[in-house]
């Protein structure tokens, strides 16, 4: 019954040196972090979830945050070792860690690599200092350049993130920046790029500033043109999109993230981490878990109970199916109908509105083939509306 969706482990490190104004992730600035206590708690929660998922074959580990590059590399090593001891793993186990260009030096890269990390994802975000400042980043371009060049030498796979469609950014400015990024990437053997349009997330300081009219974002049509131009430049450079915001050289897609988008299970360890766990048994049922977000409380609860689960919801068949469509259409090769039927326990047709589908295919937003449902590049750019129209 196992398919290509994989089974991942996500470990959340909730601390940052400072908060970026656009970020709504579960991150906290702490004076002092007791690395030992955190290592023990993460290990305990990992052990707890390993007990819930016997017999699974682990395909990826992802250290996210927060800023997991602030984690003691020994802690990462201990967690990796525990994961390998708890589950059988594939030979080419992908182990990613997110890093900020300002928080690492070459020596730390060596230690992180030595800990077992084989893929580094760097939050570069912009290639000019003014915008980095606007985004609240602690690093400058020069520092970032040194960091990614060093990382590319040390890690087998390196990726970096950029945020575009920023205030006052014109198409020409972005093109220039992206060309520079692609040039760097190709020259230094970086194989993956995540290119996100700047989004105002509710409750963030930046969203509040935006609501007060402190700055304006590119209008819909301009943002659309930027996106389309991004696709064209990346395609030409051999970095086609394999997902809405993710580009990779041949074979360099992030397998951990593909697990999310293909509807695979994942264990979420650490404060605020989410998981999807399918229970064995007569009926297929996927649990959606979420751990306590506040680091101190999570720590106490793990100490007491062995885990810090705050929400553990059995997804309804419909919710599970909806999720599969919602994430599945994000990837370039679309939704595999057989995989969908296997994971959702029902055929895709049972979920969709035929009039909506007819409109979407007529408008060249979706391509419906016997084996797959695929969002066209135009469809992917309007995917939220596409999904709304598609689902009955």
């Amino acid at each position: 019954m196992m398919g290509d969706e994989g089974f991942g482990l996500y470990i959340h490190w909730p601390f940052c040196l400072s908060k970026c104004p656009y970020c709504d992730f579960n991150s906290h600035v702490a004076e002092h972090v007791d690395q030992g206590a955190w290592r023990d708690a993460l290990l305990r929660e990992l052990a707890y979830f390993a007990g819930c998922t016997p017999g699974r074959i682990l395909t990826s580990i992802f250290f996210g945050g927060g800023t997991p590059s602030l984690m003691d590399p020994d802690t990462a090593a201990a967690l990796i070792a525990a994961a390998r001891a708890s589950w059988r793993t594939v030979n080419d186990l992908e182990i990613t860690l997110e890093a900020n260009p300002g928080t690492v030096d070459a020596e730390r890269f060596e230690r992180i690599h030595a800990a077992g990390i084989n893929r580094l994802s760097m939050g570069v975000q912009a290639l000019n200092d003014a915008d980095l400042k606007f985004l609240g980043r602690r690093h400058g371009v020069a520092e970032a350049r040194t960091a990614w060049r060093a990382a590319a030498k040390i890690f087998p796979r390196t990726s970096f993130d950029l945020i575009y469609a920023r205030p006052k950014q014109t198409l020409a400015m972005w093109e220039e920046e992206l060309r520079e990024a692609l040039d760097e990437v190709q020259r230094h053997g970086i194989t993956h790029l995540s290119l996100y349009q700047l989004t105002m997330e509710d409750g963030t300081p930046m969203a509040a500033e935006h609501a007060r009219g402190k700055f304006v974002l590119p209008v819909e049509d301009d943002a659309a043109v930027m996106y389309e131009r991004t696709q064209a430049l990346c395609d030409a450079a051999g970095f086609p999109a394999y997902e809405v915001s993710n580009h990779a050289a041949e074979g360099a897609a992030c397998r951990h993230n593909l697990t999310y988008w293909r509807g695979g299970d994942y264990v979420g360890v650490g404060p605020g981490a989410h998981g999807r766990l399918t229970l064995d048994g007569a009926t297929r049922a996927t649990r959606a878990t979420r751990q306590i977000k506040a680091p101190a409380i999570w720590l106490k609860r793990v100490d007491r109970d062995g885990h810090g689960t705050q929400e553990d919801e059995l997804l309804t068949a419909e919710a599970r199916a909806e999720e599969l469509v919602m994430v599945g259409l994000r990837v370039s090769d679309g939704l595999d109908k057989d995989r969908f039927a296997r994971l959702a326990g029902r055929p895709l047709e049972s979920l969709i509105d035929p009039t909506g589908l007819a409109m979407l295919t007529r408008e060249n937003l979706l391509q419906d083939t016997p084996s797959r449902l695929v969002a066209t590049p135009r469809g992917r750019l309007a995917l939220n509306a596409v999904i709304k129209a598609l689902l009955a």
Partner: protein
Amino acid sequence: MTDLSHIRNFSIVAHIDHGKSTLADRLIQACEGLTLREMHEQVLDNMDIERERGITIKAQTVRLAYKAKDGKTYQLNLVDTPGHVDFAYEVSRSLAACEGSILVVDASQGVEAQTLANVYQAIEANHEIVPVLNKIDLPAAEPDRVKQQIEDVIGIDASDAVLCSAKSGIGIPDVLEALVTRLPPPTGDGDAPLKALLVDSWYDAYLGVVILVRVKDGAIKKGTKVRFMSTNTTYTVEQVGVFTPKRVVLPSLNPGELGFITAGIKAVADCNVGDTITDDARPAAEPLPGFKPSVPVVFCGLFPVDAAQFEVLRESLAKLRLNDASFHFQMESSAALGFGFRCGFLGLLHMEIIQERLEREFDLDLISTAPSVVYRIHSTDGSVQELHNPADMPEVTRITKIEEPWVKATILVPDEYLGSILALCTERRGEQIDLTYAGNRAMLIYRLPLNEIVFDFYDRLKSISRGYASFDYEVDDYRESDLVKVSILVNDELVDALSFMAHRSQAEGRGRQICERLKDLIPRHLFKIPIQAAIGGKVIARETISAMRKDVTAKCYGGDISRKRKLLDKQKAGKKRMRQFGSVEIPQSAFISALRMSDD
């Protein structure tokens, strides 16, 4: 019991803002109807909406005791009247309850169009009229010019007009004295069979239906079994009294007096305004001359934003009608807006007031369709039907002719704006009847189609004249006209609630305007949406909403999935609430804004 010679019944006629309510306040205060502590501004305007807008909607009465210079105490009954033309009907019945009127004119502004309409009604009701120039203490006051204007425009003697300032309290004793010396006392026979005029009725949460009466002959007491002559129904009087403006219960109301009665009446609809109330045991032979019933001239559809509120809307309309028998409502259904009511009003202000009261007093969110007048459709089979709703218009091939209502409009305007006002009247198909000057102001009499007035005439008039033009109209007659129904199609689907009637010469312009507005109001969809205005099968205006280009969440990883799914579920629920036309979702706000007449 007050001798007839010591009673004066009067109303106050004025244009909005000329100080009618303030003057009433001062008169009440001068006669100690209320202590200073009880006084607040515009005591007679009970409704919040009256105070906020500074207008009077419902007639109110108040009895005052005034000790005159001749040493005698007089009973003064003030019947407050609405100033706006929409409530002309209320004005006429208030006037019928009195023998005289005070004509209040702002000494700096002069006579306005509304003043004219009301004062002519008072003259028609055989009232003695005392001109009062208010705001005499303003630097811009020109009493002599305004007196001359009153004589020129209205044609009454203004040489002994009373000068006052209600706001500063100047001249109030002179006003009271003029009431006593210049207005005639009522006449009546206390021994004759009871004849009382039903002036108004309203529903009071504590007292039930309250009836305002003016006793002509006989007397009305607690326990009297009264007969309403038009319906032949009888009730036993429970309470008799007056407002001072506090409610005071009295043993009886006698000839010449105004006051209220309660009689265990359940519905205001049973109380026909203008009816004669008599004593069941000793009925009058002849009823008093009544009023013409009020006829709604402007119609619109009212729909609840939330379809589940339909029943609440029905109940609210019924409750409001208890207080205002002059508006009408009837259930209707629209493909676009679901179930609602087609409502008839005395005019545009009346329509606005009712909508606002529904939203405010009953906490309803409403969508109203564009106002429409009543057209007469002559069919090929010889029948004539009234068209209240453009959506109901029959096939063009079955129509021989359509008639529309015209009004006679009076416009007073400073002469520097005259040119643009004349142009506006012409553009709105107006026909000039008269153009005269009173000082530096022009008085225009025009005949205009009501349809043009209902559109945005008043707003345009105000903006062209920077607020200086005043305007009034009365419905005149029906005339044949080249009218067409303009349909609005969104993505080739007819949206019935947006259909409207227009003169052929205006159809294209207005159709284009609505299409342009809708283009901005309907959010982008995944496909192009044509918006068309059409007469029959012929498209007269067209706009296109381009397809949505970008709507995608940049990041969606393991931690985002639950939140995104919940958002999607919410959107799916919201989708069910949206008004769907074929595959296009039109938000409620689009209807509200598209149908709003003026550009603001």
